[in-house]
């Protein structure tokens, strides 16, 4: 069907922010690739498009959609599918990914990744939409695990099994957000390692890491918020090691989307990801 190989290098990447352009171009190490949010590059022209063209000559680019609403009850927006196809056609990115979530309802876009019940009906709908997207852009996509604050009483699948089934039925790959695992596992009181053990790691083409905020619910139970506004937390780095030990090296992205820091702070996070990847090579027996 579609090309199954992974074109992103198993190196640290960062979510691209325009304020880092000069620093990145001057000295990108240890960053080996960049990820952009598709919807920020759907204007007709100007600086965003020009910068992306220049960056794509230097770095492998991962296009990460945040607005297709793959889990939406309605049909996918044909205009948005066309915009995604146009972007993938001219940019020819190394990877394309989207979320197991919904964000649009009856043409109102909520600008957030909203949760889904894991049922047969959702599974069928998500698979239909993944197929439609892959057919439109003519390439395989990666589907990302969400961060969860609550559970649906009607769910009949565990999340790893649900994602595995989507991958099996559509041929899509998976994007494993390790911070999301930690956030969801804390919020819904399960073991993050057990989640990883149940996850179809062979299908994973990319890893995400990001920072979260800590809060409590009205019962005093921990409530972690997936904010992407600070450093990756220590237990998430530990969980990354647990994943990489089982998956082998993978392209590993640092996401920092709010209160974006100066370049050296983000580069330091990327170096930490590089150290985690390097540990694997050190373990390879001679």
């Amino acid at each position, binding site marked *: 069907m579609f090309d199954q190989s992974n074109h992103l290098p198993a190196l640290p990447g960062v979510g691209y922010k325009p304020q880092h352009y000069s620093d990145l171009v001057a000295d990108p190490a240890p960053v080996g690739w960049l990820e952009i949010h598709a919807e920020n590059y759907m204007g007709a022209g100007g600086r965003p498009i020009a910068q992306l063209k220049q960056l794509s000559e230097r770095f492998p680019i991962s296009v990460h959609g945040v607005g297709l609403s793959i889990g939406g*009850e309605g049909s996918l927006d044909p205009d948005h599918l066309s915009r995604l196809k146009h972007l993938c056609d001219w940019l020819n990115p190394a990877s394309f990914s989207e979320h197991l979530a919904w964000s649009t309802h009856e043409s109102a876009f909520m600008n957030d990744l909203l949760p889904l019940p894991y049922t047969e009906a959702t599974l069928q709908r998500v698979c239909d939409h993944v197929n439609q997207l892959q057919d439109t852009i003519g390439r395989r996509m990666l589907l990302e695990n969400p961060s969860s604050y609550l559970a649906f009483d009607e769910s009949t699948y565990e999340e790893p099994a649900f994602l595995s089934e989507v991958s099996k039925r559509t041929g899509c790959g998976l994007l494993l957000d390790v911070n999301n695992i930690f956030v969801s596992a804390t919020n819904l009181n399960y073991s993050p390692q057990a989640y990883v053990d149940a996850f179809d790691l062979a299908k994973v083409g990319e890893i995400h890491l990001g920072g979260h905020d800590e809060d409590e619910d009205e019962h005093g139970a921990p409530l972690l918020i997936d904010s992407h506004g600070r450093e990756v937390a220590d237990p998430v780095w530990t969980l990354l090691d647990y994943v990489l030990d089982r998956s082998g090296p993978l392209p590993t992205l640092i996401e920092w989307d709010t209160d974006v820091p100066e370049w050296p702070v983000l580069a330091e996070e990327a170096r930490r990801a590089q150290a985690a990847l390097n540990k694997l090579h050190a373990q390879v027996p001679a």
Partner: protein
Amino acid sequence: MSQTAFNAALLDPTADRPVGLSDSQGRPAGKRFDVYRNNVTVSLREALETGFPATARLLGEQNFNAIATGYLRANPPSSPLMMLYGGGFPRYIAAIPALAKLAYLRDVARLEYALRQSYHAEDAPALDPAKLATMAPEKLNNARLTFAPATQLVLTEWPIHAIRAKALGETDENPPGVAQPTLVTRPEFDPILTPLPADQAALLADLMRDKTLAEASTLHPGADLGQLLGTLLASMALTDIHVEDT
């Protein structure tokens, strides 16, 4: 539970939270649902604040937050292209009775939206001034201008250029007592603003409606067409000048 029910409760803080959502102990999701409510409201409000920074400062944080929240609940984005969100915000502000005395706010917001549209507009090579300079006068009379996709004209009765600059701390000077209809152009990547005399702006508006130079100057006999053309060329507002074969 349907997404219709989930969605309705997202934007209406007085609505009951949807049933069928729980924490890990089987208790109703409560505050956990409110994380989504908060994410949606805050992210859309921040998008409006980023898109209308001078309007936000003129209103002050508290007023802006209240007005932006009212707007986003009634007018959530109609597409995932957040760069275009808020096109109806100027009109929304203008319809708020309590802001009737700040009638310039709507036009400052229109100017800010025009800047955003200009920033993301299609690239186009600017008109070579030589093409205009070498055109025979009778041909020039019948010529029409083609404007760059990034060119916008914001007509107004208020000194919006100066009001915006002062609100953003770019100047300490008080706005003048004259209207500042403002031309927005994008020589390369950063839009620039050029306030125009009112009669030149009216002339320009007709040129942008595809009138010939002669037709437009007949409608605005007092306006200085030569000076306006100089401004348009210098700010790279044009991509072509052409005469239809008759």
